[in-house]
């Protein structure tokens, strides 16, 4: 009996202690429930956010830039497909392996990849690692995508300049928006990696050309593979631009410049349309737009011939004898001088201790204003300048738009210098010397102009005094509406000179080509009027070094100028030609202007407006 009791007692003890176990386990389950409540209900939204970040990737859809056409609808810039390689840092599993594979597959240096990985702060925003992959490279990468997590090859549009380097300066080029650019008002709010215009029309009209980026949200798995599209906001392509440029003429202008440095601008004097804007040497905007390497950039930027400079509006040159047009205008408007005032040119003009020479040894003999222009007599203009004074000359020059921006729709226009006594005091902190007036009256010394300014000025002479703002873009076609919106031609106002003055100048300029220094611009088919100019490059006249131009070292030779318009009776084209370091304007610049004008007048009866309308 006692044994049974002990056994029974023992069994009761076992049962009691079993209760501890059960209670303990159920208590643990309760604790786990509490933890579960904390994770799922209290911190639920937080973890849900983390889960979304795991799952969702945003891909920017880059819009295709607007197309650019010339005035006849010839395509200048379009877009071609390009394979770009993107990397999402968050999805990378094996950094070393990735860097090694990229070096092996597409030749991207390991160090470069690692540098980019470190730079990227937001780990789930894809970075553009390399653009313009070849089809082969893209295929190689796609084949390895399972072990190279985080990589994505995306087909995007790449800017393409159909004409290569033709018109490169006015078209400009594109590139990724830089941090400095993002601070500018026009480029504010753009996402990192956006493609924007860096120069030329691409930059000025970037707002229209760039379009609106879209956004695609995709779901990825743990390996970064795209599983499905969550949402898409389609990108809107940019608006198309119709330039006033005449591609055929532009190409001719560039070939006429050839290997020489220089610029040619041709405008329509009736409305300011830019028909030609050539600058030499040029560059290939395709190269600059396709992920420029630092080495290549250094090479271009340090080129002593400055291929990136648009000489047409950034090159500032002494106008040389082309400036005599402005001095003559000042003389005609002044009561201190008249067209009939005669001066005897003996080949030199003494002023103080200095002797100013005429370009023609022995001089031109007795000259009046008309013949002084035709023969480009320096001594005559020395006299005019000395009589009128620098401030009168400067005032007249400004009436033609010199020393001021032309207002063309291109970035970084330079304005040159129209010196005056006030200018010298302000800028140089020195008084004006009379000798400087003598230099200025033949367009030498401090005075500088751009070829574009001279083209606008000669255009104003040809049309009887209307100064146009050069117009490079005639119309834009909005992608969204298909509407063609034309940009009106803008007049900057009349040049307030007497009508007789224009007639006098027009007659004289016609005579320059017929019987004067511009003889090489004389055409059998078109009546051309113009003025030669030869701008000194160094303090002394280059011709003093040698009488034979060919014998002078290239960098000491003069810049050749020729400004012209045609037809003389009813002008349709105004041209400014500048060829650096060649010699006389009559020899080197005038034939270029002639060739260009003849080519232009061949098809001038085509109504360009219908051409644009035909594009709709």
């Amino acid at each position, binding site marked *: 009996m006692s044994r049974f009791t002990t056994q029974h007692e023992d069994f009761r003890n076992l049962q009691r202690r079993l209760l501890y*176990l059960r209670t303990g386990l159920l208590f643990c389950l309760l604790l786990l429930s509490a933890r579960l*409540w904390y994770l799922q209900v209290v911190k639920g939204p937080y973890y849900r956010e983390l889960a979304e970040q795991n799952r969702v990737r945003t891909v920017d859809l880059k819009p295709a830039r607007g197309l650019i056409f010339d005035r006849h609808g010839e395509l200048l810039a379009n877009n071609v497909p390009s394979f770009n390689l993107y990397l999402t840092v968050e999805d990378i*599993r094996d950094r070393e392996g990735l860097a090694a594979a990229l070096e092996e597959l597409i030749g991207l240096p390991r160090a470069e990849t690692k540098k980019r990985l470190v730079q990227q702060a937001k780990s789930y925003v894809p970075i553009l690692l390399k653009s313009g992959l070849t089809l082969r490279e893209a295929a190689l990468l796609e084949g390895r995508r399972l072990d190279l997590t985080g990589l994505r090859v995306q087909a995007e549009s790449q800017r393409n300049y159909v004409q290569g380097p033709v018109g490169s300066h006015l078209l400009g080029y594109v590139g990724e928006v830089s941090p400095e650019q993002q601070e500018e008002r026009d480029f504010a709010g753009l996402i990192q990696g956006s493609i924007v215009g860096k120069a030329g029309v691409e930059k000025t009209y970037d707002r229209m050309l760039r379009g609106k980026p879209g956004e695609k949200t995709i779901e990825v798995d743990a390996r970064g593979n795209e599983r499905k599209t969550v949402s898409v906001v389609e990108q809107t392509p940019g608006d198309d631009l119709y330039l006033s440029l005449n591609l055929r003429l532009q190409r001719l202008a560039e070939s006429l410049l050839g290997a020489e440095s220089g610029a040619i601008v041709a405008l329509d004097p009736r409305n300011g349309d830019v028909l030609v804007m050539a600058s030499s040497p040029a560059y290939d905007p395709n190269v600059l737009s396709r992920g420029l390497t630092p080495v290549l950039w250094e090479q271009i930027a340090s080129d002593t011939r400055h291929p990136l400079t648009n000489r047409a509006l950034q090159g500032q040159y002494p106008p040389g004898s082309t400036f005599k047009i402005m001095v003559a205008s000042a003389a005609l408007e002044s009561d201190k001088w008249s067209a009939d005032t005669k001066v005897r040119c003996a080949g030199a003009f003494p002023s103080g201790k200095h002797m100013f020479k005429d370009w023609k040894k022995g001089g031109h003999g007795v000259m009046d204003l008309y013949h002084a222009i035709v023969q480009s007599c320096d001594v005559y203009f020395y006299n005019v300048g000395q009589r009128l004074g620098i401030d009168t000359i400067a005032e007249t020059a400004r009436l033609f738009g010199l020393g001021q921006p032309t207002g063309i729709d291109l970035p970084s226009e330079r304005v040159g210098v129209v010196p005056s006594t006030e200018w010298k005091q302000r800028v140089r902190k020195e008084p004006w010397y009379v000798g400087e007036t003598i230099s200025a009256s033949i367009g030498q010394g401090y005075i500088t102009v751009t070829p574009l300014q001279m083209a606008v000025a000669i255009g104003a002479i040809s049309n009887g005094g209307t100064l146009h703002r050069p117009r490079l873009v005639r119309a834009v076609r909005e992608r969204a509406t298909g509407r063609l919106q034309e940009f009106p031609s803008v007049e900057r106002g009349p040049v307030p000179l007497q009508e007789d003055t224009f007639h006098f100048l027009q007659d004289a300029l016609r005579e320059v080509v017929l019987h004067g220094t511009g003889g090489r611009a004389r055409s059998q088919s078109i009546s051309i009027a113009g003025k030669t100019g030869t701008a000194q490059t160094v303090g002394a006249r280059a011709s003093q070094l040698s009488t034979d131009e060919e014998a002078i070292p290239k960098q000491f030779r003069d810049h050749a100028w020729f400004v012209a318009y045609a037809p003389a009776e009813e002008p349709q084209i105004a041209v400014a030609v500048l060829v650096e370091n060649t010699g006389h304007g009559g020899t080197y610049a005038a034939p270029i202007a002639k060739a260009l004008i003849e080519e232009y007048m061949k098809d001038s009866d085509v109504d360009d407006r219908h051409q644009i309308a035909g594009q709709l």
Partner: protein
Amino acid sequence: MIDTRSPDSFEWRFVLVVLGILALGVISIYSVSPSPMSKGQTPLYAKQLAWILIGLVAFLAAVAIDYHSLARHAYVLYGLTLILLVLVLVMGRSSRGAQRWFAVGPLTFQPSEVAKLVLILVLSKYFADVQRAGWIQRVIVPGLITLPGLLLILKQPDLGTAMSFTFIFVSMALVGGLHAKALGLGVLFTSMLFPFAWELIWTSLHDYQRDRILTFWDPMTDPAGKGYHALQSRIAIGSGGLLGKGLVEATQSRLKFLPEGHTDFIFAVFAEQWGFIGVFVLFLLFAALIFLASEIASKAKDPLGLLLAAGILSMVGFCLMVNVGMTMGIFPIVGIPLPLMSYGGTTTVTSMAALGLLLNVKRRRLTLFY
């Protein structure tokens, strides 16, 4: 002797709870099976269903064979198990730095899982047979019985199973008569020894085990590397919220951000899909299982039955707590599967056999006064 009585309502409840948990496990495994499968490959959930069928056979066998006859051979079975544990160290298949499996054709078999069940059997037999007087009988001898198995499992190494082993020993010793005071002293003694033993333990751990313990304290120190499991598991559970995301929207599981979603982290998968409400139901099922098991234990006809049931209860309970605790980040990540839910042949079959044994204890209790 085969018991042919038809099951009563208690037994039906027990079976339904077990089947319920098994079903939830299969659904969760199904949800993380890749689709479509590559050709000729059997999907995991189908394999698991097959394991459950085998498990049912084991379950019924465990119900049918009288546990007394099993207990009679307990020491022999334990001896055989120890031999298996030695063999697996010699000729087992190793994976991820651990040698735990036997490969039999396409199947793998993990002897340490079976060892847990045999340990329960042998300790029950021991505690039922002896007087359980004095601490030598209560602790030292059963400790010596446990030790060889424990050391062999640590050698593999299989930290999770070793911990289960230890816990089974401690809880059975506790039920078997160890005074709470003595247990307290033991815990105190162990914790005093711990700083000295720590160096030894720490250096004997594999690198991945150390990393798991380190990242347990702060998974954010290396979210993409060693803390990845812990963090992704927490994200999966937390993002499930109150109501869960459903099978399709549970992105952590479906898109494989959560690794081992079908095995050790199946609880996180379930929690992401079904939310707090769903897990609450699951916890109710497990609570019911614990309750029913302890009912069986306390109503067993003899100490052997009671101890056997208590051992099984502590084994299942421990795995449940540690597995759920580790997915929720309140326990370091050790490889312990969730009983009845995690994918795996040995664990499923052993768990079901253990529960069958539990029911066996229940069905013999009425014979007490025959």
